[in-house]
């Protein structure tokens, strides 16, 4: 079949001007102006993410920012990296394809509570179970904002929305418990009003070799004002962070949390609202799917003595004669 060149010619190669590689900065990482409402918690998440990338200094072209659908899922338009915006709830399997297809990319997925825990709930469980190497940031506002105030999977019982005018009746998801139960190997929780903590959590998540998840309580000022005030000291709330074990042999260290301890992590997850913030769980032992698949491929190539594509396919057809 001939090319359709006469109608729609493919782009002609043009000369490439080499551009010196400058360090990543907020300036080079900024793209479209955010479409969020003034006062939205997501602005702080975006600012923190720029800082995370500035600290990591990955090669610019190796960073991928992806998202599903929702207010927070607009995120990739505001970050100047490779990236995009997939369909509602399915950003994790898409990102798994990116991560497994190209192991040298740094894959960040952003989304909200509806995207992650409701329509995409199944994918969250299985991406965690498979331990695909990528970082997932869930900007949880406990409400459907883009569609203007319906009950979300993390809306508390009694919260009045357009779909529950007399107050939500269904028990909400406990994100930490769900993530631990699904087998995520890095589980952390933070708050959009705590920028330094947010940067630290995202940084540790990015450096984790496996499926890392950070839940960020990020207020929707339009449809659920004050949702997370219980954890904001200047609003009279209590900001309680997880103190991690230092293994310094001191008596107080015995009381600190060991993030490798899954049972202890569950206990933290079950603390009453607003709960605690920090790294609940971190497992650096379990192999990633990326590594396991690479091992399978290496073994297969060992068995076939590294035969080239043509030799492999010819050998297959020889057996079909």
């Amino acid at each position, binding site marked *: *079949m*001939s*090319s*359709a060149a*006469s*109608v*729609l*010619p*493919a*782009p002609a190669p*043009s000369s*490439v*001007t080499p*551009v010196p590689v400058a360090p990543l900065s907020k300036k*080079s990482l900024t*793209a*479209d102006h955010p479409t969020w409402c003034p006062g939205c918690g997501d602005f702080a998440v975006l600012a923190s993410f720029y800082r995370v990338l500035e600290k990591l200094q990955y090669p*610019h*072209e*190796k960073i991928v920012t992806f998202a599903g659908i929702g207010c927070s899922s607009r995120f990739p*338009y505001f970050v*100047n*990296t*490779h*990236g*995009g*915006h*997939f*369909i509602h709830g399915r950003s*994790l*399997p*898409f*990102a*798994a*394809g*990116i991560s*497994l*297809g*190209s192991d040298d*990319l740094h894959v960040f997925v952003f989304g909200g509570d509806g995207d992650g825990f409701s329509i995409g709930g*199944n*994918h969250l*469980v*299985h991406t965690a179970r498979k331990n695909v190497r990528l970082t997932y940031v869930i900007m949880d506002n406990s409400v459907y904002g883009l569609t203007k105030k319906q009950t979300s999977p993390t809306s508390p019982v009694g919260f009045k929305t357009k779909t529950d005018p007399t107050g939500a009746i269904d028990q909400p998801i406990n994100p930490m418990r769900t993530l631990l139960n699904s087998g995520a190997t890095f589980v952390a929780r933070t708050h959009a009003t705590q920028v330094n903590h947010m940067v630290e959590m995202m940084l540790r998540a990015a450096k984790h070799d496996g499926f890392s998840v950070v839940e960020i309580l990020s207020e929707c000022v339009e449809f659920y004002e004050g949702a997370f005030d219980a954890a904001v000291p200047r609003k009279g709330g209590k900001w309680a962070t997880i103190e991690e074990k230092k293994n310094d042999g001191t008596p107080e260290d015995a009381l600190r949390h060991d993030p490798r301890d899954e049972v202890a992590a569950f206990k933290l997850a079950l603390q009453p609202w607003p709960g605690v913030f920090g790294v609940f769980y971190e497992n650096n032992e379990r192999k990633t799917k990326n590594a396991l*698949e690479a091992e*399978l*491929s290496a*073994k*297969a*190539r060992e068995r076939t003595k590294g*035969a080239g*594509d*043509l030799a*492999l*396919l*010819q050998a*297959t*057809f020889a057996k*079909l*004669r």
Partner: protein
Amino acid sequence: MVSPTPPESTGGVASPQGSPRSIHDVVIRLAGNSQDGIQSVGGFLARLAGRSDQDIMTYMTIPSTISGGPSIFQVRMGTGDILSAGDRADMLVAFYQHSYDAHLSSLRPGGVLIYDSDHVKPDPADNRFTAVGVPITTGTVEAVGGTAKDKGKNIYTLGLIARIFDLDVGKLTALIKERFGGKNEDIVRNAMLAFDAGYAWPQNNLRDLFYRFSAIDRPNLSTGRPQVTLDGNSAIAYGLIAAGVRHGAGYPITPWSSIMETLRAELPKYGGLFVQCEDEIAAVSTALGFSYTGRLAITGSSGPGLSLKMEALGWAVMAEMPLIVVNVQRGGPSTGMPTNVEQSDLMQAIYGSHGDAPRVVLAPKNVEDCFYIAIEAARIAREYSTPVLILTDMGLSSRIEAFDEPDLPNLLVSPEPDLSERPTDFKPYPLDRVTRHAPAGARLASGKYPTVTGLEHDEMGHPTGSPKLHQQMTAKRREKLKALAAALPAPELTGDSTGEVLIVTWGSNWGPAREALVRIRKAGVKAGHMHLRHVHPLPNGLEQTFGRFEKVVVAELNDEGVYGFGQFAMMLRARYAMPRIVSVTKTDGLTFKVSEIVAGVAGHIENPALHASVGAASHSALAVPAA
């Protein structure tokens, strides 16, 4: 060990009289239970044909239950091109009473009934067939002995068939050894004992019923490469590998699963990867993720699974992401008839999803074409940066055919993602050219990185609410398919180029339609057959061909619908607005019989000779001539 030449006649009660009778082709139906291994008999015959001059086509039904239950395997082998699995059987091998009861009606008058005399009591008054009782079970038990019980009945039967049809024992023996050679020696020995016993039985017990396929004469057809024997799903999987597709994702569903099983095992050897996902939506999403990194990926499913992928397919159209989607059609809707054949996903493949979402749909015509269409799908997906659907079906998926080994050195491609730096004026979605993505990992000289999105977007991929841009981008996505249509080769046209009737088919109906054409023309009707592999977009210029026939009869395996036309016929009528386009459909879950297409065509044209030929019963070529 098998004796390549059977023992000389012992002068027993019956021995072959005269030389074997010459036949052109034969349809053998083996009916038993799914655990009897009758599929492997079919497999042996198919591979034997692949190594001989005979052509072959098989047809199989498997129960949709997990194990057990009646099962049949039908094989048609013969001289020259075998285009369909055959309408009725010339020989029925019935292992059980229920096999006899259920399948006797599939036997042609004058055909040969072979029944296991240990299990089957045929109707003694039925003299339409030549009935031969063979103690298949006791013969196998006596030959193999030990604890094997009646395991090996299938190989005993293979021996029986080999003797009756004078098949190449040396080649069959080699195949049996290859098949069982990996297992322990006892298994090979038992198989050969069962084969020898089956082979010896006709020699000592049959007076007649010996046949030989007529000599082949097709010097110009062969490519000089050896024949290979495989099923349609394998052909698709290996075609994708030849096309350089190294990544994919899927979810199990019958009859698609064997494609993903093959790719899961094969792709790691090629440095690739096939992921089994948690559901159909995750599978198409993961495949799109692979494609986004510049590695064209494949996903697939069967009818209901394709429905689940529709939203993501809409995204692939909007984002112009290359992707291959295989749909192995089965009877629907819903779980429907999961192990039967139907072509009822055509509209879903072309028009499913939301919004204006034009995409490419191809359909292979036979097993060999499954291989080549996979290569073509990959080429189109890359060249036009578009999702391409391959619509195959349950019939093709499990059918075994022999064909010339593909010219692998000239076909194989192994493209790497193009991660070269993109120039400063790079735009992923230029309005005046085909989209070429900069995959993740490629540097952008401008320092401005593109986004891929399901939102309507500008030339850089950023969202836009501009009414003008939506209109322009919608046109861009449509125009590239029109460009493809203009570049497509003219479809295959056989028979008369003008006349009373043109049969039009797509997908696996190619073979039966070709045979139907021969019969229709024999009845004196001026007729042609057009077969379309590219079902969307259609190649240009079809209306000129349609205009040269009084009637255009579209034969397809789906329902005539509320308006009286099958799905493809409906599309052709909408496209060409020609009232002469009419429809022949059926939904019994089985492939078209040649006679059904002939009858369907006869129903649409006034031709007494053709009408007369429809009812005529055809006698089996195996019939013993009257004394």
